[in-house]
């Protein structure tokens, strides 16, 4: 069965919630699956929030020494991906429902490239940035920003 690399560029966003949801859906994919996070020079405060995700089985977390921009990060993610199928998400998104990976699994083989689209949450949500207390150890607060739900593009290499 084909493997799937879920590739997520990370820049100054906490992504634990997105990773939690993706891992919960991992069994929906019929092959091997990795989640590959590449931090694009985020503030230390935000890196502290995301680094522990690398200790979860199935999640790979790496950091770039400086910001290079999302397109370059996507290329690096694709180059380093371990699997045949690549699912490109953004760090601002959330999964729309519990069948997100199942839909891609069902569409496998239908085309070399699948575009899943983006749905936007109705109504305003609190604005946010990564306003974190950081490594000093205070409780970190991260609000959510009016979030584009994930860009769902999977392409076959």
């Amino acid at each position, binding site marked *: 069965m084909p493997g799937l690399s879920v590739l997520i560029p990370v820049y100054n966003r906490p992504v*634990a919630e997105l990773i939690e949801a993706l891992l919960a859906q*991992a*069994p929906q994919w019929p092959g*091997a699956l990795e989640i590959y996070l590449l931090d694009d020079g985020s503030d230390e405060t935000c890196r502290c929030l995301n680094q522990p995700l690398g*200790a979860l*089985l*199935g999640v790979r977390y790496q950091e770039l020494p400086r910001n290079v921009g999302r397109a370059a990060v996507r290329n690096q993610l694709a180059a380093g991906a371990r699997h045949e199928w690549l699912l490109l998400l953004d760090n601002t998104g959330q999964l729309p429902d519990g069948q997100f990976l199942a839909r891609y699994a069902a569409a496998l083989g239908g085309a070399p490239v699948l575009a899943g689209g983006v749905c936007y949450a109705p109504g305003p949500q609190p604005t946010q940035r990564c306003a974190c207390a950081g490594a000093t150890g205070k409780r970190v607060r*991260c609000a959510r920003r009016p979030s584009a739900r994930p860009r769902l593009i999977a392409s076959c290499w």
Partner: protein
Amino acid sequence: MSELIVELRDATVMQETQAVLQGVSFALEKSDFAYLVGRTGSGKSSLLKTLYADLPLLVGTGTVAGFALPRLPVGKVPYLRRRLGIVFQDFQLLPDRTVAENLLFVLNATGWRGKARKQQRIADVLGRVGLSSAANRMPHRLSGGEQQRVVIARALLNEPTLLLADEPTGNLDPEVADSIMQLFTEINYAGTAILMATHNFQVIEKYPHRVLTCQDGALLDSARN
């Protein structure tokens, strides 16, 4: 006959495109506790990664917790990983969540349903590591040893048959390391096999168990010498 939790036969352990260990054959039973030693770069971590299917087993055969490794990439990896617990050297708790929320994160990520069930499970594992009162504390309010206990509690959430530990006492004072080893001993007595990579020979001397040594591209087994 005892239940085999891990069995590798003539396995080659890869690191990137290079074979770091060849002809690896060993088995762990349900009640086993074994150390994995060897210099940095000798293949310890790669062997552990092979066992939790982060690295593919391309040569040889193996089973882990009832799953056949060479055939694994067939949707079974998440299920295999739910039968394993893993503890790393760094404590790796999410800093913006309480102890209980850190454990809840893993339960959600591994498909648990039902609020009451999840709460009960969190209380159970915190009790096992002696931290029942810490559920609502933030990780930075805990000592290093306490944080490592929370990580061990997290590793126990899905009742693993095998606990893999990579230098779990590496960042701890000797006294604290000692208490962590006592905890591992209790977990092992309760029926979980443990494979622990370590450089800490004081720990090995004080808590003697079988030793697997990565050396010169091969795995030496103290049980066979």
